[in-house]
């Protein structure tokens, strides 16, 4: 049985971001829209962790936390506070409330996971981890002795999280099976954005660490755009899978 995490935020957007951040992990997420709902859910569900927004209607996060501290059953539940305000006074106020940690918005899902893992261990969902000898996954496909990593037309932050989650076990599986070649296939990708650059850098760095040679395939237009970025400017681009295979 995984962890039970209560996210209390009046913004459905933030609750969805929190849920997505925990998706790769063995966690049950319970949601509340304000402090009153949060208190009731905390008492009913007895969560292992509460991710609590400060500014909410009906009852704000600080009031909810103060009430929790008065309840013997709730006072020891660790709380990570979310706030849009990074000012010194606000941070001091949050710390004095007795939270385990706090996060200032804007934040990335992976930053939240980092904070949580400092408080408690998170186990990856068993179903999401590639089984031994299994080469198929959403982005990975084995073609002979070459591991293909094909990414979608548009790279968003969740894509990076998914690829990162799958990449390390995949590289371990590859090197264990003697596979030392990878093609990063960007031929479907139409748009250059920060997420794409981060994804390329992540893949190249991890492959280098694992001793896997990786070649990149992209359209001529995308290849030209990648040349303009410091991080990707020196990466040789192949314009077809066949060209890349031949280059190995």
């Amino acid at each position, binding site marked *: 049985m995984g962890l039970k995490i209560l996210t209390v935020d009046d913004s459905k957007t933030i609750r969805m971001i929190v849920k997505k951040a925990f998706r790769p992990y063995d966690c049950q997420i319970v949601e509340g829209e304000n402090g009153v709902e949060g208190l009731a859910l905390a008492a009913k569900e007895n969560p292992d962790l509460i991710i609590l927004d400060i500014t909410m209607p009906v009852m704000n996060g600080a009031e909810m936390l103060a009430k929790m501290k008065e309840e013997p059953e709730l006072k020891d539940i660790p709380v990570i506070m979310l*706030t*849009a305000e990074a000012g010194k*006074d*606000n941070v001091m106020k949050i710390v004095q409330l007795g939270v385990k940690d706090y996060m200032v*918005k*804007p934040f990335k899902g992976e930053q939240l996971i980092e904070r949580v893992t400092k408080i408690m261990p998170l186990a990856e969902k068993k179903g999401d981890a590639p089984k031994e000898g299994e080469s198929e996954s959403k982005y990975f496909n084995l073609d002979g002795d070459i591991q293909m990593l094909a990414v979608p037309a548009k790279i968003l932050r969740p894509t990076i999280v998914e690829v990162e989650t799958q990449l390390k076990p995949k590289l371990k599986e590859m090197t264990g099976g003697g596979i030392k070649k990878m093609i990063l296939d960007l031929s479907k990708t139409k748009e250059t*954005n920060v997420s794409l650059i981060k994804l390329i850098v992540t893949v190249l760095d991890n492959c280098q660490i694992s001793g896997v040679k990786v070649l990149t395939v992209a359209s001529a237009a995308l290849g030209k755009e990648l040349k303009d970025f410091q991080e990707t400017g020196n990466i040789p681009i192949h314009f077809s899978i066949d060209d890349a295979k031949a280059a190995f």
Partner: protein
Amino acid sequence: MDLSDFDLPTFIRGATQEVFDTMLSMELSEQELKDFGDTSRIVGSVSLAGTASGTVNIHVSDSFACQITANMLGMELDEIDSDDEVHDVIGELSNMIGGDLKSRLCDAGFTCELSIPSITSGKDFSIESKGWAVKEAVCFQFEDHIALIEAYIKNGG
């Protein structure tokens, strides 16, 4: 500190660009102020009240709002269920930008509270806000879209 010494232009630009980059992976470039004309748009607003008071408005076209929502929630455009989802995302963006402004004001010695966000939507309308000590409007571009950010502050008494 006098509000006229408060560097509103720098803070509002920095906060907007950080929020769009971190939450949406969108790199904004500043451009000349533009009018939305009769393009249907959404405005997310938050207010500050205290020894300094103020308002932050973020204006985006409906189509940009949908693109922002899709990026924020990691979904495709056709997966957006309702206007509520879009309004919530735009409200959250205004909360983050307004929250940063509040922090800057508090660090400068002012005390103020941040409201929860509100949303205005429609077309061919203007928002006039008067009586402020310091105001800043800045227009950003992402691909074919623009975002107009307005911030107003004054002494709250």
